[in-house]
């Protein structure tokens, strides 16, 4: 009698061609599953996917607005993912992106309302960015400090800090009080006020299309991060600490300092993403993060923490996200939740493929004695 055993074994390596093939298969499988679901709801999957991947821009007289909105979603996700990847590189499990993003957005808004009217837009923008980076950097840095000093668990702490930030934001949004300059004074009901007429991030008009300069700004930051990681001493330190704390210590590196510095930068960049988001919209919102703190984790890992990879993955995920909302809008049977399910299926199968690029399943038959 033979007994079948199934084991999961780590792969030694996977050829690039094979990897790409596996991702492609994963996406096709996911789309096929989605197509079956769509068909069961009497929706033509070809039309649906067509709308989704073109983000409804075909036959759309204001397609440039779709691109603008796409960029608005892409910029915060890209920057947050790149920043999260920095944390992950030194094996610091920062899942506090949401909180750091919110703190950055609140700090930037505070500057806009308090300093904006007197300082003029140029200086205010600079202060907004700096305030967001500093406050979010400290918000994340505190957790790094607790980790190096007291060996606290950063996964739990960053997670819990998310909720402190979120509920602080909710409190600001729901509390009518003389001190609360975040709210619109004209509204009887508490809603956030807009600072768009005080200060707003610059855009360049290309015909009807307005290009948000935050895109160029963030791409520049990504380039700097890329160089920082590949070409500087500090970047080298990050990769050594990430590989082995023991080796780093043996080489005489001050590991605690490196961890603190890197997490501060990581959180500060996420705060910067929050400032860019709120600076573009000119108004706070309780859903300001658009979940980039969570999505960024997926983006960073799918891209294997590689800066260029993150750019590509973030761009694709944004197409998926923007496209599925737009596609679902024209079908009465497909609501936003269903669009999320389709997205989830695609992400999940890509992650499964990712798993199989690193592990393989070995089925062996063992003779019983």
């Amino acid at each position: 009698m033979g007994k079948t055993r199934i084991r999961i074994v780590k792969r030694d390596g996977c050829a690039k061609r094979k990897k790409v093939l596996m991702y492609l298969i994963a996406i096709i499988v996911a789309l096929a599953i989605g197509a079956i679901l769509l068909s069961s709801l009497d929706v033509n999957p070809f039309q649906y996917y067509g709308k989704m991947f073109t983000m409804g821009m075909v036959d759309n007289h204001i397609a440039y607005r779709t691109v603008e909105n796409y960029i608005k979603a892409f910029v915060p996700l890209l920057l947050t993912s790149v920043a999260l990847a920095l944390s992950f590189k030194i094996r610091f499990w920062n899942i506090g992106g949401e909180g750091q993003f919110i703190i950055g957005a609140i700090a930037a808004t505070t500057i806009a309302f308090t300093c904006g009217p007197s300082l003029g837009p140029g200086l205010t923008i600079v202060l907004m960015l700096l305030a967001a980076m500093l406050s979010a950097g400290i918000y994340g840095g505190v957790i790094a400090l607790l980790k190096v000093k007291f060996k606290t668990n950063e996964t739990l702490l960053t997670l819990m800090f998310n909720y402190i930030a979120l509920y602080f934001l909710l409190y600001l949004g729901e509390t009518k009080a003389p001190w609360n300059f975040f709210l619109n004074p004209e509204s009887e009901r508490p809603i956030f006020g807009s600072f768009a007429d005080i200060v707003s991030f610059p855009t360049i008009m290309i015909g009807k299309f307005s290009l948000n300069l935050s895109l160029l700004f963030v791409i520049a930051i990504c380039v700097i991060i890329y160089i920082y990681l590949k070409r500087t001493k500090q970047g080298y330190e990050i990769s050594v600490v990430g590989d082995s704390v023991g080796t780093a210590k043996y080489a005489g590196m001050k590991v605690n300092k490196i961890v603190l510095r890197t997490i501060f930068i990581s959180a500060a960049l996420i705060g910067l993403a929050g400032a860019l988001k709120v600076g573009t919209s000119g108004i706070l919102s309780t859903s300001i993060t658009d979940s980039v703190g969570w999505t960024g984790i997926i983006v960073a890992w799918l891209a294997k923490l590689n800066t260029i990879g993150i750019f590509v993955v973030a761009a694709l995920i944004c197409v998926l996200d923007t496209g599925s909302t737009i596609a679902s809008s024209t079908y009465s049977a497909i609501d936003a939740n269903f669009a999320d399910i389709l997205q989830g299926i695609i992400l999940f199968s890509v992650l499964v493929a990712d798993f199989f690029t690193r592990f393989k399943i070995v089925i062996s038959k063992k003779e019983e004695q």
Partner: protein
Amino acid sequence: MKKFISTLAVMLLVLAMCFAFAACGNDETTNPDDENVTGNEDGFKVGAIYINSKNDTAGYTFKHHQGITTAMENLGLDPETDLVIVDEVPEDTEAVLTACDTLVGAGCNIVFGISFGYIDAMEEAAAAYPEVIFSHATGYKSNDTNFNNYFGRIYQARYLAGIAAGLKSLELGNNNIGFVSAYGTEYAETCSGINAFTLGAQSVNPDVQVHVNLIGTWADEELEKSLAQDLIDTYDCCVIAQHCDSAQPQIVANDNGVFGCGYNSDMTADAPQAHLTAPIWHWEVYYQLAMENAMNDPANFVANVGNYYGGLAEGFVGISPLSDNCVEGTQNYVDAVSELIVSGEWDVFSGVKLTYDVADDGTVTINQNDAALVDTEGNEIVAAGGASVEDAVITGSMNYFVQGVVLHNN
């Protein structure tokens, strides 16, 4: 590895076949639809932004969706092809603006936004797209050409529900009525609702007290349930009214053998032994009016429709059919008061109070008596015989409770 690849390939093949079959089968069924899509390319399109899912089966978004689709069907539009919806949109200016772009990009001629927090985004979108009409529920902003707001005199319906509750309390000999409300004086909408309900109940039972428990959020089924239970246990309430999304307060009333007035939909099915009647919205009345105007004379939309604030007279608000749990004769009271309100002669928040004479055959005659409208602090809001408080107060700034309201948790 080879084995794995081949397994995967087989799986893929199977899936691809399913895909092809599904697609083929689907083509046949959706072909007529496709023709419709192209056929209506230049036709009238309706856009909507919802706070919850368009596939909801109860609650606020559901009622609006029902109103929009009903209005479209009445006007010969097909909700399957002529209606574009972005749903699950949070009250986030950026997100709402993106939704507006999506709807305008899809060719919508009119865009409805149903949640209060969409207000600034819709104002901005109306300025950006002057050729599209934007219509915002529960808001207060508008412009002269393509942006208006709409809401209704639900307080009139609440007054009628109050009469049904008051008659029940008279019959039971218990003057304690409960009210589970999302908010209290923080929102004029909830505040005016509690007041109108109380005034209605007092008109038939002057000794009635309305005990209010506040939830502190628009929807929380657990709290809706426990606060209703508290009203029954602590204050001996015999009727439970509500201003919240779910039917939980009615179900609690049913389980405790007391009575209740729901909200938003006829909750008799949820609480068959308890439910009396519920104030309800007929959103389709406005949606049809708005769509008709947008189709026929879009340039003068705001001039013709204005900021809409319909009531019983327009059929925009009303109460669900009185259930068998109501006291006999309740319908006569309701009919008489409805008629009076519809005539425009009298309104709820005025310095005139109603009393009733009932003839032997059950016919109800209304007496109008001058009496001041006084709040719980003893302030005179409207002098005896005075005209009703202004609409702007009812929708925007009413922040006091009338005498007879007792606020418990805060």
